[in-house]
């Protein structure tokens, strides 16, 4: 019994009355998102102000794009951009194919017990906390550590590897692969199990060997999954998480390790330079937002599977 002529307000009043319990439930949710998500979005205004806590967000004088100009003109800008992109690209280049190859290998195993054992063991690093993983890394790459020993045997220096800017990205990317290779393969294994076994049978009858079967049946079968994950990953290329880097880097490695998010953390939280670091954070958020939108558009166009 909804008359189309009823005004928005009378419809709204009726709707609220009818669904008042639902809106009551929504209140704490709304409050949470306003306080912890939308208030900071409003607070990002300080990126355009000479913020001082005593004057507040509105009271602080407006300085326009001063902080952005300062950042783009600074020595750090190119270094941070380079490090952010390089860490992302290397992670993608090495870290993205690894679980796919791993899933293909696991998929070829016929012995159920062996398969289960490999999976159980390789999923394990994913469940270790980042602090513990980094603690182990610090230990293994110290001047007397196991990894340092291996590097030394291969002709590298016998010194603290984490203090060497040349090794930081390698350590970051390799440890990421170590932690995620097993876990990341699950999604591909799920896709692999969806491939019709009749296809393999037919291929065997036609005389296709294992390698040809992988090339012509297995890979096409998981291609949609690969493409979607790849596009989403490319969309996140400018957002390198700061937690692991903060745990692993140190002033001697800033040259290769410092990324935009860690710089924001240092300038803002450590040095209390709120307005300046908010501006850098905003710059990064806007780029991330645009990249994710673009990635999603491309994903929707190419595979008809998007996030929205």
């Amino acid at each position, binding site marked *: 019994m909804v008359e189309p002529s009823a005004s928005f307000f009378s419809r*709204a009043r009726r*709707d*609220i009355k009818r*669904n008042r*319990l*639902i*809106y009551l*439930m*929504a209140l704490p*949710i*709304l409050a*949470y*998102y306003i306080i*912890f998500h939308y*208030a*900071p*979005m*409003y*607070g*990002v205004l*300080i990126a355009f102000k000479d913020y001082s806590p005593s004057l507040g967000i509105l009271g602080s004088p407006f300085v326009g794009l001063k902080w952005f100009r300062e950042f783009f003109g600074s020595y750090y800008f190119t270094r941070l951009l380079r490090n952010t992109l390089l860490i992302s690209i290397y992670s993608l280049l090495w870290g993205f194919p690894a679980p796919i190859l791993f899933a293909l*290998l*696991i998929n070829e195993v*016929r012995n159920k017990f062996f398969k289960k054992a*490999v999976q159980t*063991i*390789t*999923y394990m690093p994913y*469940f*270790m*906390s*980042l*602090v*513990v993983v*980094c*603690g*182990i890394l610090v*230990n*293994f790459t110290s001047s007397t550590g196991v990894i340092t*020993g291996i590097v030394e045997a291969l002709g590298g220096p016998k010194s603290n590897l984490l203090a060497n800017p040349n090794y930081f990205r390698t350590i970051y990317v390799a440890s990421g692969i170590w932690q995620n*290779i097993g876990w990341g393969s699950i*999604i591909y294994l*799920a896709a692999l199990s969806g491939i019709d076994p009749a296809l393999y049978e037919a291929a065997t009858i036609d005389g296709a*060997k294992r390698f040809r079967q992988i090339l012509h049946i297995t890979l096409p079968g998981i291609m949609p999954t690969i493409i979607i994950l790849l596009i989403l990953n490319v969309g996140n290329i400018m957002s390198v998480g*700061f*937690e692991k880097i*903060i745990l692993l880097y140190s002033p001697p490695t800033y040259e290769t390790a410092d990324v935009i998010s860690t710089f*924001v*953390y240092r300038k*803002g*939280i450590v040095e209390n330079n*709120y307005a300046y670091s*908010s501006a850098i*954070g*905003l710059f*990064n958020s806007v780029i*991330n*937002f645009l990249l994710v*939108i673009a990635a999603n558009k491309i994903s929707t166009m190419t595979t008809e599977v998007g*996030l929205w």
Partner: protein
Amino acid sequence: MHRKSRSEALFPIVNACLLTVISFVCLYPVLHVVAASFSDPARLNAHQGLLLFPQGFTLKGYEYALRNPNIISGYKNTLVYVVSGTVINMILTALGAYVCSRKNAMFVRPLMMLIVFTMYFGGGLIPWFIVLKNLSLINNVWAMILPGAISTYNLIVMRTSFLGIPDSLEESARIDGANDFVILFRIILPLSKAVLAVILLYYAVGHWNSWFNASILLTSREKYPLQLILRDILISNNKGAAVQNIVSPVERNQYQDLIQYSTIVIGTLPVFFLYPFLQKYFTKGVMIGGVKG
């Protein structure tokens, strides 16, 4: 033709070797840490190469680690944060997911858009920090619970699962006079046990692992969660933390590594006991979440 069939026969062996090596690399750090934590410190320091078995045997590392009051208090705090944080997470996420799964209320769609938007854009670390500061959440234990009270991703996963429950169940309950709370708690939630278990574990493990918020929001050590204590002990910029309750400087040097290894074991033990359980439900979670989101 002959060569081809030979490589075909060889493949399973090569594959098994490759997978064994990968598994060993994944497992090795765990073996090393456990073996080292029981090792005699002098022999441990002299040891070269891979470490698979304890060198000698001592429980000194564990003794010193457990005598460190910070580890005990960190454990207690983490337990409090995990339990209370997860309870609040589950209540709010279930409420939010239920609200967002309602199709007939006119303000649900705008609310949903408001929620989803936060997945793609945020004010950033510093404005967020300033908001928490203004709410006097600095060095306040609520800072470990409230700012992460809802994970939007989990909310959406739960909503998708709620949407999969047939409307007819709800309609018949409504005819019997059930209101929305009754429908949520008596019908929807009991039918969603699998997704609830997955999301509960996601939240709980998230609280267990989290250290960054605590590191910028908490200032007094008595409130630190375990991971932050572990960071102080394990990550080199604060080496003294491992041996702070040992008086003799000789012992300090000798036991530092050993205590670090024991601390890692103590700090990871609960995850290892729960591992089979976690693995099962997290794997399920990957399937539920899917790529389609």
